């Protein structure tokens, strides 16, 4: 039974090889045709003079050759087109299967939460239902033991970035050529000096050719966002994106998407305020999620302070590095890419989860450490090893997705709390943002991307009852939840029968069952408990009422310079957030 298909497959392969040989040699024959001692290639354009010099007979035979070649190539084209159609059909069928599986395990009620067919590339974000289904499906697949297939990465990253540019109304064809302009202005020269210093000191960038590409992209970004310019660490991130995306344009698009849409604001600008905030947030979260490691590190630090008078928080230097490059300098490339899939699809809380997961998975080693010095040595070994033995990919991702439900509770409120604290220490003189006084206003939304994803469009039947399931995972609530205004509105609209906030059936239990089934089906392995609530509505939505556009638009000036249409210059995070959140409230 098995032999027949393999044999026919082999035959087909042989046939194809043979055909390609014939075509190839045929082309070569033509290419080698010598006219009056001059070797001309089939690819070259014939000059009028060349043809005039040929004898009639020669021309005839040449024409016959060309005709022959054209007909062969035509039939090849037909064959390939048919083959392509076949492949397209296969892909469509496979997508149907994936949709069906996701559908089957997502809900028993009605048609389930997915209304559109699965696809690798994201559908247009303007089609909210389809886009949201796409996000949910991919998030579900991310949580499987192996993550998303590597071959999807380029399509997904670029797809998301392109949607972002579409949504913010930025005409890349008009803007990008000026960003990649090779003439350096006086401003550029200073940037160039900074960038060049890091080019040869970037991992994965070996050849001079790659260094030049990296330089052009970094310079293009600095021109795109002169407010931020170049920050060490960009080189690491861009080099890693470049390896996936290949072209400079696409790399820049994905990088901009990552910085402007996914990472919290000011991660790399203004004294790294975003990172300073997140370091404080992490110190709080470690108390909740990695209590053993946290208290051990605090004890070590305290005893060192008793002896020596001072010791900085032990984990901070490492977490700073991890946040600055989104783990690019620390984890093996394979793990970094997988983590970034999650980062772009699930939002920036993946970085926070990643850090907590490192402390958690290394808990045993860490609590055995007896002094601060031993801690630094242990961490140095871990950082320098960069090998997969130190971080177990499976455990790492399992912890990331199972440490707490999505979206992480309190992350928003903790960021808000610590951000205002960080702002006091600001010391960037003469920054336009500071002059305008805008920076002192806390940003209204720190992570619109996950907030969009976790606020799916209302559906009539699936999970219609529990829009809000309060505080299920733990009583360790550090802060009051942000009040999700949008959800309140929605609930009053769609669930008139529900009076109590607490649903009669816990939706998480339902989801968990379903997810367990999904995993069983996909992995045929142990019953995993990872991948909680990817179809869920949030327990607390990070969406907050948006402040009207008092936010400084750092692209505005650039746009004027580049004389892009005025309406396009309205690009900013707030506008996009508004767009998205308004789409949810409809």
């Amino acid at each position, binding site marked *: 039974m098995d032999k027949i298909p393999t044999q026919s497959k082999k035959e087909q392969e042989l046939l194809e090889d043979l055909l390609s040989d014939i075509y190839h040699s045929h082309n070569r024959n033509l290419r080698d045709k010598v006219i009056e001692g001059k070797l001309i290639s089939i690819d070259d354009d014939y000059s009028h003079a060349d043809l005039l010099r040929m004898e009639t007979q020669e021309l005839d035979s040449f024409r016959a050759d060309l005709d022959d070649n054209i007909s062969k190539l035509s039939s090849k084209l037909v064959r390939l087109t048919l083959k392509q159609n076949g492949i397209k059909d296969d892909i469509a069928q496979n997508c149907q299967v994936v949709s069906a599986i996701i559908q089957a395990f997502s809900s028993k009620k009605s048609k389930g939460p997915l209304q559109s067919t699965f696809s690798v590339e994201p559908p247009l974000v303007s089609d909210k239902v389809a886009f949201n289904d796409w996000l949910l499906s991919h998030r579900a697949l991310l949580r499987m033991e192996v993550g998303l297939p590597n071959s999807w990465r380029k399509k997904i990253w670029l797809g998301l970035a392109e949607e972002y540019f579409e949504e913010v109304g930025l005409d890349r064809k008009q803007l990008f050529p000026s960003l990649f302009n090779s003439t350096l202005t006086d401003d550029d020269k200073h940037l160039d000096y*900074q960038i060049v*210093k*890091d080019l040869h*000191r*970037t*991992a994965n960038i070996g050849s001079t050719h790659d260094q030049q590409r990296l330089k052009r992209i970094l310079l293009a970004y600095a021109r795109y966002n002169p407010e931020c310019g170049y*920050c*060490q*660490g960009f*080189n*690491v991130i861009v080099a890693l994106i470049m390896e996936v995306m290949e072209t400079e344009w696409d790399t820049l698009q994905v990088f901009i998407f990552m910085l402007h849409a996914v990472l919290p604001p000011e991660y*790399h*600008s*203004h*004294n*790294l305020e975003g*990172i*300073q905030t997140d*370091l404080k947030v992490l110190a709080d979260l470690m108390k909740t999620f990695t209590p053993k490691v946290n208290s051990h590190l605090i004890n070590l630090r*305290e005893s060192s*302070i*008793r*002896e*020596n*008078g*001072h*010791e*900085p928080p032990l984990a*901070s*230097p*490492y977490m*700073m*590095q991890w946040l*600055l*490059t989104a783990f690019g*300098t620390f984890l093996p490339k394979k793990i970094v890419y997988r983590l970034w899939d999650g980062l772009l699809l699930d939002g920036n809380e993946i970085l926070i989860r990643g850090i907590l997961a490192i402390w958690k998975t290394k808990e045993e080693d860490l609590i055995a450490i007896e002094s601060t*010095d031993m801690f*630094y*040595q242990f*961490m*140095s070994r871990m*950082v320098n090893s960069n090998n997969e033995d130190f971080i177990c990919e499976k455990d790492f991702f399992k912890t990331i997705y199972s440490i707490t439900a999505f979206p992480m509770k309190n992350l928003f409120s903790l960021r808000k709390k610590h951000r205002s604290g960080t702002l006091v*220490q600001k*010391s960037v003189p003469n920054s336009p943002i500071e002059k305008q006084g805008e920076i002192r206003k806390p940003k209204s939304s720190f992570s619109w991307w996950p907030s969009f994803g976790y606020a799916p469009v209302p559906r009539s039947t699936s999970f219609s009852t529990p829009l809000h399931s309060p505080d299920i995972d733990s009583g360790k609530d550090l802060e009051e939840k942000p009040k999700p205004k949008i959800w309140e509105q929605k609930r009053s609209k769609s669930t008139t029968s529900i009076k109590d906030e607490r649903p009669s059936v816990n939706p998480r239990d339902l989801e968990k069952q379903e997810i367990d089934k999904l995993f069983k089906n996909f992995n045929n392995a142990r019953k995993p408990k990872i991948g909680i609530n990817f179809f869920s509505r949030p327990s607390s939505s990070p969406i907050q009422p948006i402040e009207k556009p008092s936010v400084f638009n750092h692209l505005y000036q650039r746009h004027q310079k580049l004389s892009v249409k005025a309406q396009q210059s309205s690009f900013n995070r707030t506008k996009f957030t508004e767009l998205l959140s308004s789409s949810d409230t409809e």
Partner: protein
Amino acid sequence: MSYDYLFKIVLVGDCGVGKTQIRNRYTLDEFNPQSKSTIGVEFAFKTVNIDGNEVKGQIWDTSGEERYRAITSAYYRGSVGAVLVYDVTKPKTFEALENWASQLRQYADENIVVCVVGNKIDLPTREVSTAEAERFARGNGFFYMETSALDGTGVESAFRQVMKKIFEIVDSRQQARKKTVRAGSIGKTRSIKLTDADDVAEPSKFSSCCKQM
């Protein structure tokens, strides 16, 4: 590995002056042209023998990137030594020393031992003279050394000089207080700027080193 003393030493200076190369030359005796730019802080360790004592240097190799300073300057505190590096072929990095010194004054302990290091002396394109650099160092109460991380010149002795100087300070204080202070806490007389509540609560204020029992 056991040691008698642990000294925290910070490496500071502009981007690309060779801090990480100096650190690698000192702790690993290697020069790696492929070395990557330092993001944040990296750590290295080396134990040496000074007057019969095992002294461990815990080296905090910080990034020169300006915008990191808001975070990394907090790591200067508690260090007893600093190696302030500039590139002898780039006057700009020498001019920046003033700024780095004031950062150290602001964030590190006031009695920190500082060694100014002019690196890359193997290059023929030198632009900052020894006399000029020595003048700067003397004026600030630092001492001055010249190194080449590439061929190793001066690296070992720069660190040794810093460690020895720290050791002398610690040792003299220890001798003076031998009978009154419990082993392990030294130099109570040393005045340290206190900014943290943690520190105020703690009576033993010498913030620099510890003697292990």
